[in-house]
């Protein structure tokens, strides 16, 4: 995979408070290639969803992009005027939200919602748009799509609704889909179906996906590469297999060890002491230093940038020539 579709460079997102400034994202950088599924994992408050919102230009006030750049191919999109961004949204970048019931309008039929989206972005007449809508529903695996297209969202089950939301996201034939916890509200058997749909759709339509989730299992099933986030920073990026089998960053190692395993039984899970720092109390140096087991002098003074190793990129002084001391 060579061509970069989305490039995020040193993204900083701030929330001004009455007296202080909260830095929610602090220098986040990563690339997404065409046709690739990039997973973004981390615990609540790590800034996963915020990264997605910043890319698609849906940061909630008073949050703002303080510095950094977001490039979609050769177009810089972090400073676009509202109207330009609106045209981009749904057309080149689409979004799938966590809760399918709140992302569909309860008083319009599925057909009306799909047709509206399709006609906003594609030059089709009402009849063609309706056909396209049915075709999309068929593709995401809704049985008897031609009949169900005139149903209201409440007539669908949770899994079916999420399929509708995926169809809605695909309506404008986007190049990038940001999926924010798309399976978190669903049961495990339905979750497996939705992951399959998402994977198949991306392969068929050649769309890249940024899959935001806290579930390492979903990442392992669906993604090509994964970025691990901690306290508004990227701790580690690499191929999924590398991160799962040989995590390098001490945080990633703790995270992987804390997941109960199906394959083998341990009496105790590995636990990372403490919890993630609040945004107004992020330690200087490496944000993980109070919880880290291999912490050194340097970790308290200097903040590590992503360092390229032979297995990916890691933001940890352990992988620098100078070490942690």
């Amino acid at each position, binding site marked *: 995979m060579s061509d970069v579709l989305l490039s995020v460079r040193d993204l900083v997102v701030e929330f001004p408070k009455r007296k202080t400034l909260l830095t929610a994202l602090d220098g986040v950088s990563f690339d997404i290639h065409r046709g690739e599924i990039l997973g973004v994992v981390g615990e609540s408050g790590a800034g996963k969803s915020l990264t997605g919102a910043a890319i698609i230009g849906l940061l909630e006030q008073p949050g703002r992009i303080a510095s950094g750049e977001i490039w979609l191919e050769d177009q810089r999109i972090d400073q676009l005027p509202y109207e330009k961004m609106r045209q981009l949204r749904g057309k080149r970048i689409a979004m799938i939200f966590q809760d399918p019931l709140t992302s569909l309008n309860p008083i319009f039929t599925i057909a009306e919602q799909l047709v509206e989206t399709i006609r906003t972005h594609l030059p089709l007449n009402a009849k063609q748009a309706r056909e396209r809508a049915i075709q999309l529903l068929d593709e995401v695996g809704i049985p008897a799509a031609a009949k169900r297209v005139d149903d209201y969202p409440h007539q669908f089950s949770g899994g*079916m609704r999420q399929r509708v939301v995926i169809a809605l996201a695909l309506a404008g034939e986007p190049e990038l889909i940001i999926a924010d916890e798309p399976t978190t509200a669903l049961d495990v058997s339905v979750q*497996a*179906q939705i992951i399959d749909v998402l994977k198949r759709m991306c392969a068929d339509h050649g769309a890249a996906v940024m899959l935001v989730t806290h579930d*390492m299992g979903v990442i392992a099933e669906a993604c090509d590469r994964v970025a691990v986030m901690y306290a508004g920073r990227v701790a580690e990026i690499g191929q999924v297999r590398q991160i799962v089998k040989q995590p390098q960053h001490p945080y990633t190692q703790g995270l992987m060890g804390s997941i109960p395993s*199906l394959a083998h039984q341990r009496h105790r899970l590995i*636990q990372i002491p403490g919890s993630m720092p609040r945004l107004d109390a992020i330690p200087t140096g490496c944000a993980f230093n109070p919880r880290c087991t291999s912490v050194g002098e340097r970790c308290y003074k200097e903040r590590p940038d992503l360092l390229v190793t032979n297995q990916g990129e890691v933001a940890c002084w352990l992988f620098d020539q100078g070490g942690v001391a």
Partner: protein
Amino acid sequence: MNQAKRPLLEVKDLTCHFDVSKPLLNRILEREPKSFLTAVDEVSFEVNKGETFALVGESGSGKSTIAKLIVDLVHPSSGKIEFDGQSLATSRGQAFKNLRRRMQMIFQDPFASLNPRWPVGELVAEPIYAFGLAKSRAEVNRTVEELLEKVGLSGRDAAKFPHEFSGGQRQRIAIARALSAQPDFLVCDEPTSALDVSVQAQILNLMKDLQDEFGLTYLFISHDMSVVKHMADRIGVLYLGALVENAAAEELFKNPKHPYTRMLLDAIPDHEMTGRKRQAIKGEIPSPIDPPSGCTFHPRCALATGECKVKRPEVVVREGTRVACWEVDRLA
């Protein structure tokens, strides 16, 4: 049966219907009969002292209803629940109070289960007062402090309010509160599903330590198979309110007998990338108001025969596993 071998909790043919009918006038005008939702359908199981029994299933399978039935927050339509040989439903007065004390509950959402206006010390002390377990105020304070330290908080936290704590810390407070009644049996309804994995690991480890220390018995309810595997000695699998399989934890994962259990195990994302093969999953859980006839799983089951569509399967025992399936021998 002698005293030592008696299970701590015995649930027999437990059934719970909920009335989901429309209001009377609507029923008359629309000529509709009353309708009922069968949330729990003839469920039987036993939990022995000191073990962890887990109930797993998807949303709407009746997991939480069973939890509420056991602690008598919801009353069963039929069937019996016996705790240490006594029935909660028929006990009155002091005997009832004592049974209630011996079983405590930990809820899913620690943001909803702690009163935001009460300091933590009061929250944890409430059961001590309610059951009269301490003689003086000083003794209560000492007990609260000990409990908070036991669950990994500090004695000084007693003066703080719930909003000053993170989700994981709040769940620790909820555990301390449950323990303050000196129970032998804890009903844990999805205790970690609102928590991040690293915090979940802390809470699961804490629960195991407390079980070793106090000899607690857990009824552990979860939808997460890997958490259940980590915690449970025995596992019951629920589908549409019915217990389809009841097996020792290791046996269930090594050798699942019911087709639904197999499907559920297939569906779990494989975070360790062992590359196991999986079957595609068919359909979704049907509505419990109008469940399929016979075996309720038959529309999604690859092995279903004519018999499955009409006759409800009986529970049979195969290699120590209790399983409700007509075709169980064809699977093996």
